[in-house]
């Protein structure tokens, strides 16, 4: 961890060297440790320390971006010079937007020293707990335990400066039988590693794995489903990317374009994005240094706002909501701290409300089939069960679905009251979501 003073020194050095009209410096420093296990033993155990400096320079209607992880004085100068040279080499872009003016972001305490200083021995002890529990039941455990410190800082030549440090601890396991025909998944995540409950993770995964043995094949078709939080996170992720993104609206490929205020979804569904919340992996400003606003995307089933960065906000004549990705940004602004508001039902009540349906632990290999209606395909994995007369009765062979995620939010008939925090490392997104009971979910195939 470098700390705010060191990162400010690096940013100041870069800004001092730049002769461009406008210059933005994005610094990200990460220390990530991850212990990975399979077959009841740790087989990969890694650590990474990296600092990247990204320079965006604006010369009139031209922008150049360069990134380097060489933070020596010479390395910083080279990155600034490269960004400027790149800008000079390109034709003017009439839509080029200037940098955002300085706006103070709130400070959010998201750093836990117990996570930052978590040792490989501590991670190994938690993993050992899971592996022993699995072995005792003649199952094998696989999974990963990650602890990470992320520092982010943004400075620009207009005077902006923002710094944040946060920690992430997450642990997940898949326990499976030797033949690989029965498996169960469980996970836990928090900014504070002390909050992770390895024993509970093991119990949940093993319970699902035990119950998954000798699954039956169900015929494809429409079913009522109870989606557990990991599956709901997938719904939130792809809906946010394809729908509640100002660039998608401006390019006429978002379902909510021109439909603000319409009752498009179940009145039980409310979705918002809040990068300042204490119960997520907070990051109070975006990659342009703009404070993240809390943005309500769906309020009781009615489509509300979409998120903006500086470029899309300028096009619509509004203020950025603080949802930029690092420049140059091809996909537009994204909500990265999504919440689906809890409802009233316990998990048991959600299941009890279903006469015949399927309980889904998580989705796997989800891909967009058609973006406008967020039609997705994917499979269930690591815990899929038949619900009959309000009871989980039999394990079910994994099913392929081809279904609209918008329809999931439209056909939600009940919302769970307990929410779960999750972090997707690849997508750099956080989710806090409950389980949902959803009618008319379309399964299109059965696995062997």
């Amino acid at each position, binding site marked *: 961890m470098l700390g705010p003073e060191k990162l400010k020194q690096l940013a100041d050095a870069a800004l001092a060297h730049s002769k461009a009209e406008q210059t933005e410096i994005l610094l990200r420093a990460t220390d990530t440790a991850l212990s990975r296990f399979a077959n009841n033993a740790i*087989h990969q155990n*890694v650590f990474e320390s990296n600092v990247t400096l990204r320079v965006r320079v604006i010369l009139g209607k031209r922008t150049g971006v360069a990134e380097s992880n060489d933070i020596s004085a010479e390395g910083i100068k080279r990155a600034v010079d490269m960004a400027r040279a*790149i800008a000079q080499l390109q034709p003017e872009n009439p*839509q080029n937007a200037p940098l955002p003016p300085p706006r103070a972001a709130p400070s959010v305490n998201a750093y836990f020293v117990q996570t930052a200083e978590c040792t490989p021995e501590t991670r190994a002890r938690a993993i050992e707990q899971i592996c022993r529990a699995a072995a005792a039941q003649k199952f*094998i455990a696989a999974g990963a335990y990650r602890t990470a410190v992320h520092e982010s800082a943004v400075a620009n030549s207009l005077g902006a400066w923002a710094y944040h440090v946060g920690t992430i601890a997450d642990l997940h396991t898949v326990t499976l039988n030797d033949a690989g025909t029965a498996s169960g998944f469980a996970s836990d995540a928090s900014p504070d590693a002390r909050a992770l409950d390895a024993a509970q993770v093991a119990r949940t995964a093993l319970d699902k794995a035990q119950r998954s043995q000798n699954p039956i094949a169900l015929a494809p078709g429409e079913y009522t489903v109870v989606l557990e939080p990991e599956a709901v996170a997938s719904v939130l992720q792809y809906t946010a990317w394809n729908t509640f993104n100002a660039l998608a609206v401006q390019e*006429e490929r978002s379902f909510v374009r021109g439909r603000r205020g319409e009752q498009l979804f179940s009145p039980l569904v409310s979705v918002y994005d809040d990068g300042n919340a204490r119960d997520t992996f907070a990051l109070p400003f975006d990659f342009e240094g703009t404070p993240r606003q809390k943005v309500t995307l769906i309020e009781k089933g009615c489509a509300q706002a979409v998120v903006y960065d500086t470029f899309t906000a300028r096009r619509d004549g509004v203020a950025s909501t603080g949802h930029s990705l690092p420049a140059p940004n091809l996909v537009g602004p994204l909500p990265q701290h999504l919440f689906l508001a809890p409802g009233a039902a316990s998990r048991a009540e959600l299941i009890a409300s279903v006469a015949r349906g399927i309980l889904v632990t998580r989705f796997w290999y989800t891909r967009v089939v058609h973006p406008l209606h967020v039609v997705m395909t994917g499979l269930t994995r690591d815990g899929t069960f038949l619900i009959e007369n309000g009871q989980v009765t039999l394990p079910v062979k994994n099913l392929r679905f081809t279904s609209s995620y918008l329809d999931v939010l439209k056909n939600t008939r009940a919302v769970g009251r307990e929410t779960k925090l999750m972090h997707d*490392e690849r997508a750099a997104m956080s989710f806090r979501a409950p389980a949902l009971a959803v009618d008319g979910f379309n399964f299109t195939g059965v696995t062997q």
Partner: protein
Amino acid sequence: MKDLSARVLNMAQMRGASYADVRIVNRTIQTLGVRDGRVQEMLQQESQGFGVRVIADGAWGFASCSRDDYADVDATLQRALQNARASALTKTRDVQLGPPEANKGVFRSAYKMDPFMVSMSDKINLLLKADSEMRRVKMSKAHLLTRGELIFVREEKTFASSEGAYIQQEIVESGCEIQAQATDEAGDVQTRTYPWGRHQQTRGFEFVLEQQLVENAPRLAQEALMLLTADACPALDATTVILSGNQVALQVHESCGHPIELDRVLKQEASFAGTSFLTLEKLNNFQYGSEIVNLTADATLPGGLGTFGFDDEGVPAQRVEVVRDGRFVGYMTNRELATELNLGRSNGTMRAESWNRLPLIRMTNINLLPGAWTLENLIADTDDGIYFDTNRSWSIDDKRLNFQFGTELAWEIKGGKKTRLLKNPIYTGVTPNFWRSCDAIGDASEWVVWGTPRCGKGQPAQTIRTGHGASPARFRNVKVFSKS
């Protein structure tokens, strides 16, 4: 480089490592993008650092750092050793690597035009010209979005090990794609991409020029617009399917490349990427495909995106058989697992995304060897079927059995002729059944080494570049339908 690697290796052994290797990597990535006639992206990224992999107390540890001053090198090595000793707390056996690999050598990928010596102005103007050609195509009541991207990569890598290996490699890659996306008032969205996703090879700028982006741009936009009014692909439980060469490449990647990764087979990826239906008893004892299906893993293929001189354990690049006359005959292996299973020498497939990632078993170039048909003859020989072209969506289960792939467009084939454009086509199947139904494969004139630059695996996540030599192929009794 030699000073740093020698220092790390000496210190590692002095502190108790029974094995150590170090990779020092310097990667430069240049990305240029246009969107709707304007410059969207001009970015150069440079990343350098080193990664140390050790065996201590019989278990693995790895640590990496972007800085190489004395204190950082010392701390990084200490973390690698601490990780190894923590791994040992749960070990069930000691890691064995088999005979030492003390190779020394230099490898440089071949190119005619160094892409980093071509001016960025020329590159962006090429994209803007292609974009302009797409945007010249107009249709009433439809909206056209256009974009294009070029990417160039240079990776300089030094590998050294405590067994005496010392290897230097330089690999240059060039990649490109253009895309037209048409939308209509009803909200339909249709996309055409050329050459497919992002096509990429370990070659120079000549690769980009050969793709003729400008010449193909108008056709691409026309096809995107035509798809808006095309009929939907019919739903058929069993029909004949011809896949374009690029779709065969994707099919090979997902349903052959991943299941032959030995770490998946041994459940080392069970919690994330998944396992494999190609379990150990199937080796040399399983009919993976029809007798005309022959597949190789070939890291020596010129231009392939999975081509290199040595893998990230210092093992020389190899060409090995995976499927011979339809029978499954080989996995992709590494030193540890090849030793554990008595499979002989590793076939050299350990690859890491960069200095900050641990090498994993990854695809090299997984190729479907050419057959005897031209695409023209394949279509002429088909009375009733559907031709699927250019992947749009792909999904497959965690054992790599049940797949569902959609393409950007399809053509109905009747009486040996392409008769009707079809939109939103999807086909689905089960891997061995599908490959056993393959009855015709395109010849060498149709064979292209397609690049798949975004193959994800591992935790922390890493993306690797893989290649697939493939030509069009025909499959019988395939279920097809349309998104609805």
